[in-house]
């Protein structure tokens, strides 16, 4: 679906954020990008989204540029607009006719479990619900590639787990391709097919771990084993 190869990126302040970063995400995969804070995960995601241009290297998409959905750590909703208008934003920007856009937004909100909350303003919603609206907004444009930047980092554990399960369900039903940036070993071990471990300064991939199937719960032995492997790789990366 998308391939980054030999990416280098320096920030305006002179810090070399990424150097020789390469990875691919195949169609239909759920890939986690795992690393310590400040290792350039978010920068990699922005490069993948085409919001940043690399100093060196290339970002290529196999079959032309896919429709991308983007979810940030903050809900990033427009506080002056209700849930429906927020979810409709991508369609409004693409000048989709109003009726069609409304229908898509209502459907997207229903898919994330927010049917009936179309007219609610962000301040009237809980943190988890705001994140759901944010995901609905990403889904409204019917993306092929969903990029998530630590979307559950600001939420409590119970909400985080529920949203994780819902995300898995959406991914299965829609045949999405997901690139999930996180600093949580347990999240990545449960949610993804593959975990890319990143080191910091400059950021690059130090391990590419394919996870065994059969991780149907957070506490199944296979998931725990995956956590052990990922933690090991992460520790090696940090120590190096």
């Amino acid at each position: 679906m998308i391939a980054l190869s030999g990416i280098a990126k320096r920030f305006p302040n002179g810090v070399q954020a990424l150097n020789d970063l390469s990875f691919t995400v195949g169609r239909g995969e759920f890939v986690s990008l795992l690393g310590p804070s400040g290792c350039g995960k978010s920068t990699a995601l922005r490069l993948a989204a085409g919001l940043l241009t690399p100093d060196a290297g290339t970002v290529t998409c196999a079959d032309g540029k896919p429709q991308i959905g983007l979810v940030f750590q903050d809900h990033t909703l427009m506080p002056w607009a209700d849930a429906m208008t927020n979810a409709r934003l991508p369609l409004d920007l693409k000048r989709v006719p109003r009726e069609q856009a409304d229908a898509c937004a209502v459907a997207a909100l229903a898919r994330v479990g927010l049917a009936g909350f179309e007219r609610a303003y962000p301040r009237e919603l809980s943190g988890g619900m705001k994140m759901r609206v944010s995901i609905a907004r990403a889904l409204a444009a019917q993306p092929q590639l969903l990029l998530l930047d630590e979307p559950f980092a600001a939420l409590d554990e119970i909400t985080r787990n529920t949203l994780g399960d819902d995300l898995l369900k959406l991914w299965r039903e829609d045949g999405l391709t997901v690139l999930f940036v996180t600093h949580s070993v347990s999240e990545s071990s449960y949610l993804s097919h593959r975990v890319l471990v990143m080191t910091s300064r400059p950021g690059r991939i130090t391990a590419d771990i394919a996870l065994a199937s059969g991780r149907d719960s957070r506490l199944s032995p296979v998931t725990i084993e995956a956590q052990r492997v990922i933690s090991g790789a992460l520790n090696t990366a940090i120590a190096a």
Partner: protein
Amino acid sequence: MRRLADFLLPLAVAAFLLGAWEAAVAHWQVPAYVLPAPSAIARAFADNFGSLMEALASTLAVTLEAFVAACVLGIATATAFSQSRLLERTLYPYAVILQVTPVVAIAPLILIWVGFERINLALVIIATIVAFFPILAGATLGLKSADFNLIDLTRLYGASRLQTLWRIRLPNALPYLLSGMKTAGGLALIGAVVAEFVAGSGTATGLAWRIVESGNRLEIATLFAALALLALTGVMIFAALSFLEWWLLRRWHESAISAS
């Protein structure tokens, strides 16, 4: 209950102060050309009601025209600034110069340039200069402070600059703009009064001129009546703009929600 107290307590203070004033003037027999009693001021107000209202209408017209002009110019300039860093860096210092130069000092020049035969236009221009800056500053800050991630999203979906401006930047600027407008409303009135003072005899017909004229004739009661009317006008402008602010932000902004 609290609403009622918000009204009644200031009113009680006003009643007490006016009563004390009336009593003090009667007790020490203060001459009316120094400090007239509130009852004398009320009489002067009633006697001059027609002419005072005409003067109020004149000042209010200048104030409102200047306020609208300042809003239009301020928002337009801020929007232009938000679209071009270069333009902002080039022109913002001049806006600041216009703001920090005392308007009393520029007013005579503007009167000469515009000409006394178009006195109203000159008054409006002077008041506009006074009211312009808070709107420009508020709108500029608001347009620039939109969430970067939200701006990135508009880029991701290929939005035009106009779409980003209309859907993200302008709504985001609204609370800042309204705050600037509240300041500007009061300043427009101050600007109108200062302009009338500078314009001086025979040309201006507003409340400020009534104050100067009454002072010259030692009609201090009428002076006080005009002054009270001016203060009341200022309060009304502030109240109207506060209501507009609350009404526009009541659904989403913290400032309006905590106040309700």
